[in-house]
């Protein structure tokens, strides 16, 4: 009897093993470099516009999102993603990439039903889980604060 669980187990020996160390090195380097670009942008906004480190966070993230959206438009970011794996998916640029690529993919179905309704197909889970987790943690912390 093949069920979902033992099917997964039975095909395991036939699945290619990912080169873990190499993938981790790639993810480390590309993810690190994206953060270095972010650090450079942050210092730029702090020096030129006189923002504090906290205030510089928003323009930095916005600039990275803009860059990632444009690179996705040219098809560059997805090539980077194939090379870097989590290195390009985990930074906020990966979030922008998932929104932009989902929107582009469904462009042929129209602007309303295609682009707008499918935009959050992948990124929606991030916002849903982020909001639920932050709300739960926020409520717990609020209650703890009231008693301390």
């Amino acid at each position, binding site marked *: 009897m093949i069920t979902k669980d033992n099917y997964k187990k039975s095909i395991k020996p036939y699945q290619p093993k990912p080169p*873990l160390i190499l*993938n*981790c090195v*790639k*993810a*480390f380097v590309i*993810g*690190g*470099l994206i*953060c*270095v670009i*972010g*650090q450079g942008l942050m*210092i730029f906004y702090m020096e030129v516009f006189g923002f504090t*480190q906290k205030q510089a*966070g*928003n323009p*930095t*993230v916005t600039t*990275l*999102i*803009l860059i990632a*959206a*444009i690179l*996705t*438009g*040219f098809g560059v970011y997805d090539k980077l993603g194939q090379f870097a*794996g*989590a*290195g390009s*998916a*985990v*930074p*906020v640029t*990966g*979030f*922008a990439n*998932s*929104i*932009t690529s989902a*929107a*582009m*993919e469904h*462009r042929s179905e129209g602007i309303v039903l295609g*682009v*707008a309704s499918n*935009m959050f197909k*992948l990124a929606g*889970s*991030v916002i849903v*889980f*982020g909001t639920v*987790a*932050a*709300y739960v*943690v*926020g*409520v717990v*912390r*609020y209650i703890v604060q009231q008693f301390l």
Partner: protein
Amino acid sequence: MDFFWAFVVGGLICVIGQILLDVFKLTPAHVMSSFVVAGAVLDGFNLYDKLIEFAGAGATVPITSFGHSLLHGAMAQSEEHGFLGIAIGIFQLTSAGIASAILFGFIVAILFRPKG
């Protein structure tokens, strides 16, 4: 030195993500969702701010900082408005990121054609 620690910490967060992908066979959506939850939980113990002080963009650029910002906005408003403030403030700090991602994503999808 700022750049060095941003590189190392940001890179290490991505390595954790890669291990979740390769060893635990999670999908990228699962990894991103878990990271956002992890960021919110770490911030609940005031740990994420320490990481940002130490690593700068190495901690603010990975998606974990999204969970941290959600909670920060919620806690800031809850000081003013009490319990209801949690829901009022939750998107306060992240609105720039979400709005720009929607806006740029929309514009790019209108202007560009997908390749291959």
